[in-house]
């Protein structure tokens, strides 16, 4: 097969256009670099593709999921846990579900916008209690970058002075919805910290982006760019420099190296024509998502790097983590026959519960936060469903119809999101026999929860139920049992998978140094979730952005100093 070789040598080739790739493109083009960005998915145009403000009845399937949009047909995300022609496998007895969004901007188009900084303790867990590992950097080293993205991208929140949930540069948070006040009252009674949420949604205009219009549909892609996504915030300034070239539908196959063992480009398949291409770069930045970047490295084998690129340690693919998760909902009699009003608000919950207990006094070592939901959301296919789980017990006819009205908006939902401790049994590797439709060897996943995670998830359920009872309500499901693993979501389901190309000071136990630069290949960097050493209970995007900014500035400085 003929390979189409692009003669241009770009300063930087970036694989991926999400949070990490978008940030790298912005920083590096603004620093003067010529950048080529490869995106495996399609172009996404908010004006054409956003389903913001669509009513369910505008479609015959009323918003239900389709294979190409597994969060529902109105969701912005093109992708899911399965992709046509792009399989992955799990080892016998193990289960890991890998979510991939294939579009410009990746998962930043439809994420929950929960924007939490990691705290000082999160970077030195091993020093504190011997479990997991320490990061090669501290909170203080990352803090200026968090500050910078707070200012540039914007988020709302409240400064609380909590020791391990650092404050930020927040816009004012929106007032809570009324049922959220009810939840907060119960949380206060139970001594559970309940504060303003921290979401990257503007409540005040910022950099030509208008404030939120409170339709509650961030996941459908915001046509006014009032929330953060890579295509709405990071790519426009990068493009405005005139130094960014983007290629969509470009599936990276391999990072190529020269005779000195330095990266010299990326080969990729043009998915629309099926043609093989190669693009040259002086520096390669992988931001394809943690597992996809690991896959690329492991598939980049050469005589110099027989175990894959940046993998002389054998660590690539290892210590994969996801956030732990489980959910419960409760029927709250006080919320029946609610007063009709618009409580869509700023998409997600306006309040949340950061970790509030001391693990030294508990039988599990890491914390979790709680996300809230409920109330009078836009009716969907679930509306009026599950009547047998309400006090009505089921039914039909005029009574049932009236019950649907009376119970509408009378439930609250709680989702726990906790920290998993990285373990040796949870990792990805190249499947020895399976390839995708372009012949690229696929990933095989191994996954095991430890008792740490299971006990933590049990505690989540006990807490949810305590709050629901305190609100005078009834849980809608029975307390899950140990045999059910306390209803912990399967690995990958929370879509916070990070950490399989970890950073560290020791080249024998890490793939990247403290600047996310490959120990084995000094012009190769990662700016996605791959470098994460641990996976605290704080949603990962804000740290991906901060780390990507730090890495990109390092690249720009090294380049200016002539050492790259």
């Amino acid at each position, binding site marked *: 097969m003929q390979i189409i070789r692009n003669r241009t040598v770009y300063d930087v080739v970036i694989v991926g256009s999400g949070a990490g790739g978008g940030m790298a493109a912005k920083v590096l083009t603004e620093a003067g670099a010529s950048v080529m960005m490869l995106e495996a998915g399609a172009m996404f145009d908010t004006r054409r593709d956003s389903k913001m403000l669509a009513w369910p009845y505008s479609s015959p399937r009323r918003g239900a999921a389709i294979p190409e949009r597994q969060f529902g047909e109105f969701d912005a995300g093109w992708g899911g846990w399965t992709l046509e022609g792009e399989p992955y496998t799990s080892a016998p007895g193990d289960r890991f579900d890998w979510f991939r969004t294939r579009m410009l901007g990746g998962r930043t188009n439809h994420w929950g916008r929960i924007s939490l900084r990691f705290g000082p303790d999160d970077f030195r867990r091993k020093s504190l209690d011997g479990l997991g590992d320490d990061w090669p950097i501290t909170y203080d080293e990352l803090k200026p970058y968090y500050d910078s993205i707070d200012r540039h991208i914007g988020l709302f929140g409240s400064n609380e002075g909590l020791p391990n949930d650092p404050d930020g540069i927040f816009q004012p948070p929106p007032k809570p919805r009324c049922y959220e006040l009810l939840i907060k009252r119960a949380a206060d009674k139970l001594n559970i910290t309940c504060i303003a949420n921290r979401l990257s949604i503007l409540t005040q205009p910022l950099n030509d982006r208008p404030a939120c*219009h409170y339709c509650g549909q961030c996941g459908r892609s915001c046509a006014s760019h009032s929330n953060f996504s890579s295509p709405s915030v990071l790519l*426009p300034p990068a493009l405005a420099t005139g130094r*960014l070239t983007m290629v969509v539908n470009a599936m990276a196959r391999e990072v190529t190296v020269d005779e000195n063992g330095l990266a010299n480009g990326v080969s990729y398949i043009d998915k629309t024509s099926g043609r093989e291409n190669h693009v040259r770069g002086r520096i390669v930045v992988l931001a394809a998502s943690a597992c996809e970047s690991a896959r690329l490295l492991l598939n980049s084998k050469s005589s110099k790097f027989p175990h894959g690129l940046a993998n002389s340690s054998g660590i690539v693919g290892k210590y994969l983590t996801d956030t732990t998760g489980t959910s419960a909902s409760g029927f709250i009699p006080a919320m029946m026959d609610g007063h009709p009003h618009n409580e869509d608000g700023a998409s997600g919950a306006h309040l949340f519960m950061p970790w509030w207990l001391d693990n030294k006094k508990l039988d599990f070592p890491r914390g979790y936060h709680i996300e809230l939901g409920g109330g009078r959301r836009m009716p969907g296919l679930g509306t009026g*469903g599950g009547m047998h789980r309400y006090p009505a017990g089921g039914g039909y006819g005029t009574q049932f119809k009236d019950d649907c009205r009376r119970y509408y908006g009378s439930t609250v939902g709680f989702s726990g999101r906790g920290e998993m401790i990285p373990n040796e049994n949870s990792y990805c590797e190249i499947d020895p026999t399976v390839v995708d439709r372009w012949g690229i060897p696929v990933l095989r996943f191994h996954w095991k929860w430890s008792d740490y995670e299971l006990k933590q998830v049990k505690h989540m359920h006990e807490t949810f139920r305590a709050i629901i009872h305190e609100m005078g309500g009834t849980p809608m499901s029975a307390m899950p049992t140990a045999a059910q693993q306390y209803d912990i979501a399967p690995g990958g389901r929370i879509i916070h998978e990070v950490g399989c190309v970890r950073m560290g000071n020791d080249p024998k136990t890490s793939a990247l140094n403290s600047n996310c630069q490959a120990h084995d290949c000094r012009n190769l960097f990662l700016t996605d979730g791959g470098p994460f050493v641990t996976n605290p209970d704080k949603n990962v995007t804000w740290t991906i952005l901060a780390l990507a900014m730090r890495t990109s500035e390092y690249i720009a400085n090294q380049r200016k100093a002539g050492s790259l």
Partner: protein
Amino acid sequence: MTSRRDVLKILLAAPAATFTWTEAEAAQAAAAARTARATAKPFVPKFFTANEYKLVRTLVDIIIPKDERSGSATDVGVPEFMDFMMIDQPTRQVAMRGGLAWLDVDCQQRFDKIFVDCTAAERTAVLDDIAWPAKAKPEHAHGVAFFNSFRDLTAGGFWTTKVGIEDLQYLGNRSVARWNGCPPEALKKLGVSYE
């Protein structure tokens, strides 16, 4: 390759003012659907057989009948919606077909006729055995599972129509210039305040 100029056009030209088009489009689509309903030939289901479809139409209106606030499930097109969903989500097909058959067999055994030919009292007797899971006898478990899921789909189909959404008094899905939190009546109803 997408040219830089095209990409710039896409990314830089997504102004706040453009998001009304979805509402306009929705209104247009709804109007088109209304016209189609008024002028089109009788709906021919793609999934349901003629007999099944008769049963479906009967059943959805028993579950959600017309009352003083809104029309019935057939009035707003729930059977058509269900037929669409059966094709759209094929994993639902066997349970739906089998559940409808279970119901007719149950009626045959008890009254020697299928559900649609039963009297109102006979229908009530059959449905009362399966509509309240906690009170149902174990021998009706399969009927209960079917009815739970059929009722859910009926409700989802009904409450996602324009009629259903207005009936529920859902007031969102619009641009709001300022978020003021909850109105005083809602706060009072829940006994909470912003103080």
